[in-house]
């Protein structure tokens, strides 16, 4: 059961790393090429540890690469938020704010997990994610309170990703059982601090949380958007073309 928890957290990080990697050599300024690559690299590192651990717990001999490259999209467990296309920089920063604010609260609590590996991952990652959250915060402020165009784009970006925030706080049997044991963090407990943080940033940026968004969910159950299949086709093609070799 822990393996499923680790897998879901690992998939979140892996898919978002893949998306952020698409920005490299395309960012609005050189500093952002560096920053986005760095955030992607942090997430990829988290993903590798979590997927490796998930494979060990599962005990079926699947390592990080088998899990990343040989599962189809119906078997990925990431939230939909992280697989959304990058859109413009405002969409990406809106997605970053929502996700990093969630991941920060999550890892902050997961440091106290009774599972030593998860606690260790969280302890290391929380510092990285603190920086990610700060990076997104700075940009949401700049764009929300920058020019008219940037404000409009930032508001649109927020509208595009907002329906996908709710899923971050969805629990299931696994998280319920594991959080009762002190292994996992009950996602529902993250909503309040998340709302406080994100709400504060939006208020300062002069942005409204979109009101009439219908929540979108499904990723945690393997029901993804049509976008994930394309992401995986690109990511996995070379690896699958040479089964079993060492790279």
């Amino acid at each position, binding site marked *: 059961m822990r393996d499923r928890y680790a897998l879901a957290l690992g998939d979140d990080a892996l898919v978002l790393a893949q998306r952020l*990697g698409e920005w490299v050599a395309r960012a609005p300024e050189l500093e952002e090429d560096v920053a986005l690559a760095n955030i992607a690299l942090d997430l990829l590192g988290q993903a590798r540890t979590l997927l490796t651990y998930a494979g060990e717990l599962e005990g079926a001999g699947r390592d990080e690469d088998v899990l990343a*490259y040989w599962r189809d999209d119906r078997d990925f467990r990431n939230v939909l938020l992280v697989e959304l296309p990058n859109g413009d920089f405002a969409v990406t920063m809106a997605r970053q704010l929502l996700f990093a604010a969630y991941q920060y609260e999550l890892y902050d609590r997961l440091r106290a997990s009774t599972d030593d590996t998860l606690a260790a991952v969280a302890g290391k990652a929380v510092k990285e994610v603190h920086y990610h959250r700060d990076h997104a915060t700075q940009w949401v402020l700049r764009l929300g309170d920058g020019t008219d165009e940037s404000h409009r784009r930032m508001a649109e970006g927020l509208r595009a990703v907002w329906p996908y925030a709710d899923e971050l706080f969805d629990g299931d049997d696994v998280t319920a059982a594991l959080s009762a044991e002190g292994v996992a963090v009950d996602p529902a407990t993250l909503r309040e601090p998340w709302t406080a943080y994100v709400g504060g940033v939006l208020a300062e940026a002069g942005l409204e949380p979109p009101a009439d968004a219908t929540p979108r969910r499904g990723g945690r159950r393997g029901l993804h958007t049509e976008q994930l299949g394309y992401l995986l086709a690109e990511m996995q093609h070379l690896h699958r073309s040479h089964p079993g070799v060492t*790279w």
Partner: protein
Amino acid sequence: DEREAAFYAIVDSDGRIEPRDDMPEAYRRTLVRQIAQHAHSEIIGMQPEGNWISRAPSLRRKAILLAKVQDEAGHGLYLYAAAETLGVSRDQLLDLLHTRKQKYSSIFNYPTLTWADVGAIGWLVDGAAITNQVPLTRCSYGPYARAMVRICKEESFHQRQGFEALLTLTRGTPAQKAMAQDALDRWWYPSLAMFGPPDSGEQVSGGHTEQSMRWGIKRFSNDELRQRFVDMTVPQSEVLGLSIPDPDLRWNEERGHYDFTAPDYDELFRVIKGDGPCNAQRLEHRVTAHADGAWVREAAAAYASKKREQAA
């Protein structure tokens, strides 16, 4: 005059010229052009490798590649800052790049067609870059020399990783080994061309090399550096078990160097002129990214000025 004499006194004694020191305008302009071209090469150089980030065949290789491309962006930042010590802004330099008035290394006008090309770039292109740059750690201009110290260290690490990636391929399946050999076949001569035209050619065309040497910017001729690179690389290719695509390559006992076939310099000039396979693509990609980001940079500037006003 006196100021020029002071300048040459420093240069001749292998000292360092610092930003606030007097320097001849031609020296400054040469340095600006060279540092800018180097910075441009770092950021254009992100593209051919960045092309494989999404498709890297293992998560470990993906992480290594992401880190490498991040380093290149970092080097670009560092070098533009070094150029700024000479009184030109990054915006000015980017504008010169985008309008084709300044160049970047022509090597990046070749496509990365397979994963092995990423390894080949690390091994050969970074290898050639290091060969070019190590002498620059002793360049007469302080900020550039110090930038080179740092950059060369990181690039040595990249070169080692590129070599290791290729070694994994050559020790893998026949398909993987063929992929590595194919990459070497395509990247060998373009890498040799990275050292520029042959010495005779350049000296005939105006004595740039001589002037740069006099200024302590250049320490070795193109052909000397090319030979150094070949001598270093051939034994590495043997460790890899790959064949360098040059039937005339052989050790010359007398010279104590490898004899080798020179690259096709006509092709080099064509590619420099803009006719490489990817010149248009690379520049268009760069210009598009910059244009697409204009509204973001404007917003950041507007926000910063609001905050300054509020603070005042």
